[in-house]
């Protein structure tokens, strides 16, 4: 008599629906969010507690992830840093999604010269390197986290607009939209109440992937010194502050926040792709 492992008799397709990487990535992101929310409870030290006697310490029971040049505990700083590193991309995406989804839907719905105009504007913004645009905005309006979030939001809007437009174009041609028009429903109401909500699955997946990208871009800006500045605690800023220590042979101050950024971005990608696969295909 042969023994079968659980699930071995299920059709391959059903088994394939248990996406281990997605569960791992999703679980990790949940942990990061919990860590950010409960940072004051979890962190062993205050994130800005300076202890020059413990400067650039390696891992030890006192400092699980070591310390930076000022002797600040890296674990505490990474936990606190998760807050601005997660909230900033969220604000960025909210702005970009509002602009992008509106532009894309309007372009697809009205077609004609409205579409041409919006698509050309989008193309121009798309062709312009995003980071350069952001640096330009910062040069004009001054640096800081708010400016970089708003500027990045503007830079991301065209991408979302393009994607929304292509989705909305195919959705608009479906007979159920015609049925709403025959019912006497106005275009704005059809778009807001019915067309965009029917795109939400695909859009949410896309936004989750973009969240990872946004987090990375904001970290890059902070690293370059345009985004969050000292004394705020931000992963990108931590990498920048930690890079001098690399020369002195201490890798941890740059490595810890860098790893945090990389892991979160990868996790968002995995989850985002899965979400758009699952929700994007019609119900």
């Amino acid at each position: 008599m042969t023994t079968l492992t659980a699930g071995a008799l299920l059709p391959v397709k059903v088994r394939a629906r248990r996406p281990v990487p997605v569960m791992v990535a999703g679980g990790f992101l949940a942990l990061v969010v919990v860590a950010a929310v409960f940072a004051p409870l979890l962190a062993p030290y205050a994130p800005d507690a300076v202890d020059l006697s413990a400067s650039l310490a390696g891992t030890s029971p006192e400092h699980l992830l070591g310390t930076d040049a000022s002797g600040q505990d890296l674990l505490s700083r990474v936990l606190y840093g998760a807050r601005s590193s997660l909230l900033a991309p969220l604000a960025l995406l909210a702005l970009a999604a509002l602009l992008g989804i509106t532009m894309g839907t309007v372009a697809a719905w009205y077609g004609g010269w409205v579409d041409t105009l919006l698509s050309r504007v989008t193309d121009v913004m798309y062709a312009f390197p995003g980071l350069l645009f952001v640096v330009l905005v910062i040069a004009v309006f001054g640096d800081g986290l708010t400016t970089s979030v708003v500027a990045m939001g503007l830079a991301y809007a065209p991408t979302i607009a393009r994607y929304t437009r292509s989705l909305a174009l195919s959705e608009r041609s479906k007979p159920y939209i015609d049925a709403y028009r025959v019912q006497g429903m106005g275009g704005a109401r059809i778009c807001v109440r019915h067309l965009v909500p029917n795109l939400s699955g695909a859009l949410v997946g896309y936004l989750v992937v973009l969240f990872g990208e946004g987090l990375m871009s904001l970290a890059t800006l902070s690293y370059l010194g345009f985004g969050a500045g000292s004394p705020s605690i931000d992963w990108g800023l931590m990498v920048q502050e930690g890079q001098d220590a690399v020369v002195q042979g201490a890798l941890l101050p740059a490595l810890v926040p860098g790893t945090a950024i990389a892991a979160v971005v990868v996790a968002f990608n995995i989850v985002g792709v899965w979400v758009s696969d699952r929700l994007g295909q019609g119900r």
Partner: protein
Amino acid sequence: MTKAEPALVVQGLCKSYPLPGGGRTAAVDDVSFSVAAGGSLGVVGESGSGKTTVARMLVGLVRPDAGTIAVNGRERTPGQRGGGKLPGLSRPGGGKAARLRRAREIQIVFQDPYVSLDPRLTARQCLQGALRLHGRYEGEAAATRVGELLDQVGLGKREADARPRGLSGGQRQRLAIARALAVDPQVLVLDEAVAALDVSIQAQILQLLADIRRETGVALVFVSHDLAVVRHITDDTLVMRRGRTVETGPTARVLDAPKDPYTRLLLSSVPREGWDPAETVRLRGELAGATRAD
């Protein structure tokens, strides 16, 4: 209102589309017909004959190049060309009130119930949405009316709370019919409304439509390529070919004693006992030759 007074009068309807290489092709060319209140008209023809374009013009999804459509003697305002603020879609003028009034004149049931229903809404929400939009039923009355509509098309409690994906093709088409009836239209256009359903379900839906016509007095315009279906449900028939009307008259007369060679061809194309496909192909060749000689 006397029976003789037509619910729908269509005169000189034309629509042409630009061809890729330049020039235009006439999808619908000078089509006129009328349907009595509570009457039923079949519009038949093969693919590309322009019958679906006629259906879409009736409900305002396509703007006619010329011609008029009147319901109960009142002309449907076709919306001035370029009168809308934005291009692209045909935007009949007149604001919300006029839009809703037009909706209560003519409603449509589309061919494919798999894509003509909003996938996010349950049957109940779908009907409630239509009632709310027209604002003629509020609160309790709306809930009662939804129940009546579901009952009228033979959908039960389980179906009421199901989304389209949880309904069969026949049930979806019943819901699409209920949605059209929700606004109490004068005329109901059925664009190949049973073509996507299998034969036993077709019969049920046709019976349902006949019942609804008798109960509500709505006039039906039945666009179809299926002559058996048209014979079953219509009083009059209009045969279209390449955008033109080739024959029109009482359904029984048109189908039993066709005067036009094209109608005879359509009839001979229907598979039946002792049917010879080669004969159909030969007739078609003759007809094509005759048309070219015109």
